[in-house]
């Protein structure tokens, strides 16, 4: 058991890592695909469209240079190495797998039948090779969200698996709050699943790419803000009162501004969205959490100013983003915080967010 292998200090720092990227190379998925989908990869060398025009940012592309599997396979593709480098070394209690966005079925700009087949294959591969092989790992259901009816069927198919914690929606150029996509949220809520949103290739600059990677990466939180605003003003959380949303890898420092701005707009423009019944900031507090990474370096005082403006200590959840280049260390990324808040950010908030994750008693309670 995990608890038995932990030191006392690790027990004090219970940890749920809300963003871990496992990677399927396409060959991994072939045994889980039927024909003709399998043959499109083996015979036609199908690759998912990718658009990022930049030289990759760090010395190993978008990965930590030390996270490549020793036998040469890509970072995140081997459970044993991930266990050694991350889960065991850090002392994780739980981790949420969020995929590598390649393949990202919901990101495909066409051929939704292929996307649907890929999502099914990916979910089966994830369950068999990760979720059922490490009790600490919980999963994200891949769907082809462009076809909400097929997506809902996939959620029904695997949603009852005890290790599937959320439905993953990528942030690209689809605004998921549109009522057209509500069958996805309806199926998620029916299966006690949360929604996780993680950016893939969001067009942050007027539908196009900015000139430099540093611009794109700086402005990623704007794409998260657009989705939060879109879901709230399209009434998703009024229509699905048990639904919660984890905004993954955009950090949390944009939240105070967005909450205040939405409240101000709501006071003036409520007549346009009469299906929204509460102040937007309250909807955020009751339905949305934000993962920490990538953390801006800040002092404890600065950190607490953000928390104060969010009006809640229950919305921030720690994440590493392993094995990516901008990984955040659980021991180094955040300033030193008072114990109750530290426990919330590293464990309790995510534990409360994901109903399928059992609680582990411990820490300074």
């Amino acid at each position, binding site marked *: 058991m995990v608890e038995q292998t932990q030191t006392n200090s690790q027990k004090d720092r219970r940890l749920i890592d809300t963003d871990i990227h496992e990677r399927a190379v396409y060959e991994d998925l072939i045994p889980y695909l039927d024909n003709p989908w399998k043959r499109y990869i083996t015979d036609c060398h199908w690759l998912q469209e990718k658009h990022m025009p930049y030289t990759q*940012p*760090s*010395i*190993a592309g978008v990965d*930590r*240079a*030390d996270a490549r599997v020793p036998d040469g396979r890509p970072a995140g593709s081997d459970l044993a190495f991930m266990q050694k480098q991350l889960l065991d070394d850090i002392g994780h209690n739980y981790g949420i797998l969020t995929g590598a966005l390649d393949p990202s079925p919901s990101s495909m700009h066409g051929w939704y039948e292929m996307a649907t087949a890929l999502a099914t294959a990916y979910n089966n591969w994830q369950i068999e090779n990760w979720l059922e092989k490490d009790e600490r790992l919980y999963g994200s259901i891949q769907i082809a969200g462009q076809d909400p009816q097929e997506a809902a069927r996939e959620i029904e198919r695997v949603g009852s698996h005890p290790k599937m914690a959320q439905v993953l929606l990528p942030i690209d150029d689809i605004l998921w709050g549109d009522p057209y996509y509500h069958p996805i949220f309806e199926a998620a809520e029916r299966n006690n699943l949360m929604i996780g949103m993680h950016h893939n290739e969001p067009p942050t600059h007027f539908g196009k790419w900015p000139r430099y990677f540093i611009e794109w990466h700086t402005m990623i939180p704007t794409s998260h803000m657009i989705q939060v605003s879109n879901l709230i003003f399209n009434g998703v959380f009024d229509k699905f009162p048990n639904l919660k949303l984890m905004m993954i890898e955009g950090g949390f420092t944009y939240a105070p501004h967005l909450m205040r701005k939405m409240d101000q707009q709501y006071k003036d423009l409520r007549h346009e969205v009469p299906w929204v019944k509460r102040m937007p900031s309250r909807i955020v507090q009751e339905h949305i959490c934000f993962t920490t990474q990538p953390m801006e*370096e800040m002092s404890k005082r600065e950190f607490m100013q953000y928390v104060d403006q969010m009006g809640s200590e229950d919305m921030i959840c720690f994440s590493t983003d392993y094995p990516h*280049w*901008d*990984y*955040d*260390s659980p*021991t*180094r*990324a955040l300033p030193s915080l008072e114990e109750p808040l530290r426990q919330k950010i590293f464990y309790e908030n995510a534990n409360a967010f994901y109903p399928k994750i059992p609680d582990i008693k411990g820490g300074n309670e």
Partner: protein
Amino acid sequence: MKQVVCKKTELQPGEKMRTNLGRIPVVVCRTLDGEFYAFSNSCIHQGAPMSEGAICGATAPTDTPGEYRYEKEGEILRCPWHGREYDIKNEGRMLVDPSRRLPSFKVSIEDDNVVVSK
């Protein structure tokens, strides 16, 4: 504290190696001119193992947007995680903020041995 870490011929120009000085993890770097340097193996940002990073060059500061010139080949130690650039020949100072630097150690050559000390 003083310690032999390797033979001079065991580390070629442009290479780096991980070692320990007592209990302190150290990365020893050899620049293209053959000189040896030693730094803490822990990045001052979040503690990444610098020996898993890269010895490389860097794009030179310029007053002209869009102008790229690569300089300091073999003189930059780049972090394996966030890619921060440290200038090996300038006391391990961070390029974007020279007031911050990797802790460094003295290196001497005694016979054919590379000796690190503090």
